[in-house]
């Protein structure tokens, strides 16, 4: 069973979401997802200022096995992107929950976060996939 930190929120498409003090959301892909994808070779980041709806594809992670879309967890505007991934996409493999963050989003409605999954709910999703 891979690492699923309790304090984060999750999506069924394997993004993690951390609520920051200023109300913005940091988004990345979970330890489980990076393990399935394998070694990352390229990350296509959104641009700061881009606006996305919930579940809209907003970034791409490309590994040696596949290219996968990253979906926006809730509606909002991008306020920051992890530019270090452009030169070091492997940070997602090394530390998916910290240095491997992909972008930061200011949600249109703060309450949308409540609809995201808790760590326990996401654990069941991953367990169901593994069986």
């Amino acid at each position, binding site marked *: 069973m891979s690492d699923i930190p309790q304090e984060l929120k999750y999506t069924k498409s394997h993004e993690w979401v951390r609520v920051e003090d200023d109300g913005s959301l940091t988004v990345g892909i979970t330890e489980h997802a990076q393990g399935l994808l394998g070694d990352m*070779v*390229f990350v*296509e980041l959104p*641009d700061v200022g881009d606006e996305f709806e919930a579940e809209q594809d907003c970034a791409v992670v*490309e590994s040696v096995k*596949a*290219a996968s*879309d990253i979906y926006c967890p809730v509606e909002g505007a991008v306020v920051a992107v992890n530019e270090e991934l452009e030169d070091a996409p492997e940070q997602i493999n090394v530390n998916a929950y910290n240095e491997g963050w992909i972008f930061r989003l200011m949600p249109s409605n703060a309450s949308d976060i409540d609809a995201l999954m808790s760590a326990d709910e996401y654990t069941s999703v991953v367990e169901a996939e593994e069986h």
Partner: protein
Amino acid sequence: MPYIPHTPEEVAQMLSVIGADSIDELFDEIPKELRNDGLDSIPARQSEMAIQRILSEKGLLDGTPMCFAGGGAYEHHIPAAVWEIATRGEFYSAYTPYQAEASQGTLQVIYEFQSMIASLTAMDVSNASLYDGASGLAEAVLMAIRANRKVKSKRILMPASVSPVYRQVVETIVKNQGISLELIDLDSDSGTIDREKLTAQTEAFSALVIPQPNYLGCMEEVHELTDWAHEQGALVIGLVNPTALALLEAPGNWGKAGADIAVGEGQPLGVPLASGGPYVGFMACKQKLVRQLPGRIVGRTVDLDGKPGFSLTLQAREQHIRRSKATSNICTNQGLMATAATLYMAFMGTNGLQKVAASSVANTQRLMALMEKIPSVSLPFGKQVFHEFVLALDVDADTVLERLAQEDILGGINISRNYDSVSGHKNLLLICVTETKTEADLKFFAATLGDIVKAIKEGE
């Protein structure tokens, strides 16, 4: 090449596996009105001998005129070794093999092709080739829209000095994708992009196409144009003739930062005119855009034992991985033509290609000097050209071409319909001269054209 038909037994076997009684039943679900049952205009089968005779008779109808027509397809000398080698069994396939890694030799040829194109265009990376120059330009337009994420515009500036045929092909391919092509007028004195109309553009655009030499043979101010487009936040697509690159500045060196994408028709590199095809497109770009480059890319790598090898690379751009989000649906290349182009470039070398280009330029200048002396004929855009120039006549251009054809001269292309509002001339011929012409050819052409124009004016 062996032709392997399905025997009746094999057909029956396949049908029984599928569970259909006949071929007709297999295609039963296709509605009647969509079927093409009767091919009435196609005659019944003929023997090989009869077909050979028909085809050689048809072939003779073409004749072997002295060719001064260009307009995107150029007659050059092709060393005999090019096609002797290209048609060897090891190379002779129209396609990239689908299991490309199975043929290291094929991959190496493509890798060499890419390296030569990158070097010729002064770009970082090249793909394995595209179908032809016109569809290559359309791919470049699509690529520029994808790649230019700063300018969120679907506008492309397309000068009238780009081949009208290319503009049509691009329009056909991109028009249903919400992309608009803004036509930039021709400056009727210089035969190049109208700079005033260009810089008057206020709305954002994704890319500017710069043809060099342009369709009329003239030289665009590529450095200034490139810098201007970059200042507007746009990308620059250089549409270039590979032969001309032996003498002219490569698109990678245009302006301060260089063009972002270089694209063009590879036919001049060892591919025969052949009534218009098959030809081969080439496309190269800066490293930072490589993930938006369409088509196959071959990379050089090492195997587990450290031995060099070649493999398809960056395939996450392609449709078998990215599905609908692939950079394009081009998942092959123009294998045979790219092989011929690679051989041509290898045999010619830098010096050889420079000689071809220089000799074409010299011949073109000679012909222009001869044409200038003919009454009723003028050079509206001057003599700053590569190997093509526009000739303005005060008699009907089609009539002149017809009469030249009677003398076995393919005298050029009548471009009057495409450039009818330019410089007040109603009859414009686009004429091309390559290294294949001798001094005698040029004199014969000029003298014949002079006689024909005179005769028409005297009402004969």
